């Protein structure tokens, strides 16, 4: 029984982003390509942020997950096209929200924020829109820190890039 490409994708669905353990590297859009050859597989991944320290862990986790296939594994990193939050699926956004991280707004909404406009980020706990940004940079480079003015809880917002 040979291994098919969809088997590889299925195994990759079980590899989670170490910083956001509710999303798989496939849902995150980090895995760009799977190329299956004779006894070997090449996985192409792309970083979310240049300095993201999770990339090495992700590569190691991918090797671990595919280890039992017996394939020789090559992991390639590409930069182009640059990763964007637009690649997060709707299901992925909902998982983020349920986990307590406000999902990224549509890119156009966030671009307005870059030009010093206001953006409306919903509190993932009480769904209030009365929230304010505490800091452009949160617990990781990909998140900003917000606070809800209704329930007073601080929360992470996944910023658009």
């Amino acid at each position, binding site marked *: 029984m040979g291994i098919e490409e969809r088997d590889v994708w299925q195994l990759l669905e079980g590899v989670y982003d170490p910083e956001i353990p509710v999303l798989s590297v496939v849902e995150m859009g980090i895995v760009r390509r799977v190329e299956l050859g004779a006894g070997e597989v090449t996985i192409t991944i792309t970083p979310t*942020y240049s300095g993201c320290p999770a990339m090495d862990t992700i590569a190691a986790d991918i090797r671990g997950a595919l280890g039992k296939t017996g394939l020789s594994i090559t992991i390639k990193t590409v*930069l*182009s096209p640059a990763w964007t939050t637009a690649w997060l699926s709707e299901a992925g956004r909902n998982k983020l929200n349920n986990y307590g991280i406000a999902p990224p707004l549509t890119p156009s909404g966030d671009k307005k924020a*870059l030009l010093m406009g206001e953006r409306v980020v919903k509190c993932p706990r009480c769904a209030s829109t009365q929230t304010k940004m505490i*800091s*452009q*940079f949160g617990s990781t*480079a990909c998140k900003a820190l917000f606070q809800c003015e209704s329930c007073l809880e601080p929360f992470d917002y996944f910023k658009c890039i």
Partner: protein
Amino acid sequence: MNDSLYNYLLMIGDNAMILGHRLSELCGHGPNLETDIALTNISLDLFGQTRYYFQYAAELAGDGASEDSVAFLRYPHQYKNVLLVEQPNTDFAFTIVRQFFFDAFHKPFLEQLSDSADKHLAAIAAKSLKEVQYHLSFSSEWVRRLGGGTEESHRRTQRAVEELYPYTGELLRPVPLETEMQQLGIGPDLEQVAGAFEETVTGLMSETALQTEGLSRHQSGGKAGIHSEYLGFILADLQYMQRTYPGMEW
């Protein structure tokens, strides 16, 4: 090997690495938790970008070169960063004003570099640009708060502007290597970058009543390897482990 491209990659990568190092010095020493985290996040972005440039440079150099050997095993005169990025974190106003001047240059620089005839360099620039937009938004916001804040915050920010503005000319004046890269369609036209820089800086300076009038922008030398005394101390810190335990990894 393509010496010009190699040196050009060092010039861009050194700016990111040395500024990233300056910001990393504030890890655990930021004025409050949020700014501490923000400054070190920016530092991390810059180090990530540095790695792309140096990995590419090492690939061009061949002969066993690696991103680490490019980063750690050069002498001070072989670093090509602008003098602005090696200036110290005198106080928070200095850190912010240095960052703002650099970001105001870095963003339009990367916008143009994203169209480089060198596809690899273009990909690095397009990736980095997304991050740098957030850097500029962070540093602008702080210049606005400090410059438009209390009498003391304004006075100290003005002092930082007076100290650091003279270093901004070097960002925008091309050296022969940059002119060569521009002619090959690889590097940006610094005149256009300068236009965007002036617009961003003049806009925010006038909004916050910070003065640049009468300040000359004469300081330069870094791109040619002639540095201020600060770089030697930075490199002593940065290179210590690699010099003491060659080839070490962890």
